[in-house]
């Protein structure tokens, strides 16, 4: 076993880390980016592309320079540390994962994503879908050689600014069937978007569409496999993001405990507070370990991949709540303010449990995959 990063990955970590930090120094910056038309900074996205960050999310087989579980985790941990709101997840990871998993991979589109020229989103969730891979109400039907899509998609992160959207739709069968699903490529101009911000400061959108044209990317077993893999990639990335956030929450809290004085000493001097910091520290190490395992088995067979991703994401949900709540509580009133960054980290950390499967979902999936 080897628990250390290779030299190249360390370099990636350093350059990307420095770049993110420089652009997101002040939590106010994030608010300004969110207010922009697209809900993020196009300029920052373009620079990320120039620096090779998006490249790092894609395998060399499709024109990228990374794409392994480890690469994904390095980049998303840094996304978490700076609370970046650019479409690293929707375009950079989820869309490119689907495009590269097809029988005929769409390398041209992947390359446009890498170059920062094309934005894409994966529209899978629906209002009544609670993270399931195959619970799909949106319909697809073949009409004179063209596929027509009808329905609506929910909580599509950065979906409003996407040029193209990948939509999961039901070709046949009942809403919860594993068979009969297709993935379709759609031009976002044909979709009605209702964009909004999320409570953790991201841009998201509700999509609805009637009889729009879609290009079939894959269907049935291949489509389901593709959805599962993509959702696992997303859950892994969010878990790594959470590790970055937890570390920042811990560091900010420890810093504050050292400087804030009450009763004539720093509040960190009280032993009851120290014990809680130790609890936080050990739980973060637990999460970090589970995420490392999940990242190292991400290229394994789907069962091992998904089982370890579920373990990581379940822990992220449970520990994320602890870290978010304790960071606020140990800070006292100051953490309740918009002005101070810890609140924004805490909100994102909590809401990560509402994306790509919550702790309950992943506990259930872990049970299934490990035949408990």
């Amino acid at each position, binding site marked *: 076993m080897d628990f250390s990063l290779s030299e190249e990955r360390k370099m990636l970590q350093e350059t990307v880390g420095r770049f993110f930090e420089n652009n997101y120094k002040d939590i106010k910056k994030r608010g300004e980016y969110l207010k922009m038309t697209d809900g993020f900074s196009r300029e920052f996205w373009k620079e990320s592309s120039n620096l090779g960050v998006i490249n790092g999310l894609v395998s060399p087989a499709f024109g990228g320079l990374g794409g392994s579980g480890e690469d994904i985790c390095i980049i998303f941990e840094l996304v978490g540390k700076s609370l970046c709101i650019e479409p690293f997840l929707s375009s950079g990871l989820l869309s490119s994962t689907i495009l590269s998993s097809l029988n005929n991979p769409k390398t041209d589109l992947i390359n446009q994503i890498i170059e920062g020229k094309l934005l894409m989103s994966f529209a899978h969730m629906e209002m*009544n879908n609670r993270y399931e891979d195959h619970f799909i109400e949106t319909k697809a039907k073949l009409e004179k050689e063209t596929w027509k899509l009808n329905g609506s998609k929910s909580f599509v992160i950065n979906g409003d600014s996407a040029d193209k959207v990948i939509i999961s739709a039901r070709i046949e069968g009942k809403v919860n069937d594993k068979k009969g699903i297709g993935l379709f490529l759609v031009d976002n101009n044909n979709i009605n978007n209702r964009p909004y911000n999320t409570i953790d400061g991201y841009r998201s959108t509700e999509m609805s569409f009637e009889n729009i044209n879609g290009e079939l990317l894959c269907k049935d077993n291949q489509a389901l496999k593709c959805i599962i893999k993509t959702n696992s990639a997303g859950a892994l990335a969010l878990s790594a993001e959470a590790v970055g956030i937890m570390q920042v929450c811990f560091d900010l809290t420890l810093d504050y405990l050292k400087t804030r004085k009450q009763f004539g000493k720093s509040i960190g001097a*009280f032993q*009851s507070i120290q014990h809680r910091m130790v609890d936080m520290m050990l739980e973060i190490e637990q999460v970090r370990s589970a995420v490392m395992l999940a990242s190292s088995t991400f290229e394994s067979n789907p069962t091992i991949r998904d089982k370890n991703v579920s373990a990581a994401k379940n822990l992220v949900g449970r520990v994320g709540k602890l870290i978010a709540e304790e960071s606020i509580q140990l800070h006292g009133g100051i953490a309740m303010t918009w002005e101070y960054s810890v609140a924004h980290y805490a*909100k994102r950390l909590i809401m990560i449990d509402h994306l790509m499967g919550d702790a309950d979902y992943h506990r259930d999936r872990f049970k299934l995959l490990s035949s408990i």
Partner: protein
Amino acid sequence: MNFEYSEKDENFRIEVREWLKATLPHYLKEKVKKYQRLTKEDYELFMNNLSKKGWLAWHWPEEYGGTGWNAIEKHIFEEEIVKASAPRIVPFGVNMLGPVLIEFGSEEQKNYYLPRILNNEDWWAQGYSEPGAGSDLASLKTTAIDKGDHYLVNGQKTWTTLGHHADMIFCLVKTDLNIKPQLGISFLLIDMKSPGVEVKPIITLDGEHEVNEVWFTDVKVPKKNLVGKENEGWTYAKYLLTFERTGIAGVPNSKSALNHLKMVSRKSMKNGKPLIDDPIFSSEVAELEIDLLAMEIFNLRTVSAAAEGKAPGMESSLLKIKGTLVRQKTTELLRKALGPQALPYLPEQFDEGWNEMPIGPEYAGPIAKQYFNMRKISIYGGSNEIQKNIVAKASFGL
């Protein structure tokens, strides 16, 4: 022991319920239900109604305009106003300052301020905390210097809840800088319209304006606004805090949140079935209900004991801790119940008269926001850690 409500109690419940039904306007009920932003006028409307009915100062002694209700009736009343979706009674005047004035105020102060509180004429704010004095309240720095017929007040208060509406603020100030901190504190009533008072908003993590900074620069405060004796304010301050804490247990609020949680988990779907059918989730709801059931009795035991006239003691600290944890748990399970529906956040949804299509079910809108906002209740009113220190110190003899 008898845990049943008597017929008299039930009749009282009906009386309160009917009165609320008759007097609480529909629009206000709707705003409260939808967690929309309440204006100063919204709060005042309800409090004025209570005042006219003689129910605003329901827990004061009868001779000062209280109701003479027993502990059970008080409990029923609190429960019914929450059930009816009435705004909360702004506590600073009637629940906090009132009892202090009754116990320690001069005749002149009682004659002037108590009727004004009863008639809801002044909006009061609580000026305890300062940037450097939170848990360690006694380390406060705002000074009041004796200038003969008045004090000259300088300093800054913070976290002042709804201070932007306030006409008056009761403050802890330093009147003697040369003795042990607790001994040099006085309790002063300050008119917010005095020259030199400035209020600045603090925006909280949910994007709302609920708390403020209040700055005092050479503010002249007449000597007659001193409550009790100079340098003895600490005693009054602590007396007030025990009243602040019992309310914070929030049993009625948690009960109504639990009902809301059950409704939401019947409507939320998991794999095509109602979430409440999920054995793990429903077990969490059940355990929350068990905690709440026990806490309601714990609370009633405590208020009944306190009804003998004593200010509630250590139990109020225990109740504050448990009460806040249970209430926070209700907001957590509500958030969990929503799944991805917790994500969208439309700030305009909380404005009166908003009538666009919500995203997802209408009840989803406020839930995540409420979860984050409720982090405050284990911080204020004396943080839960400080309550534990108080209990350990007072009862273990270690």
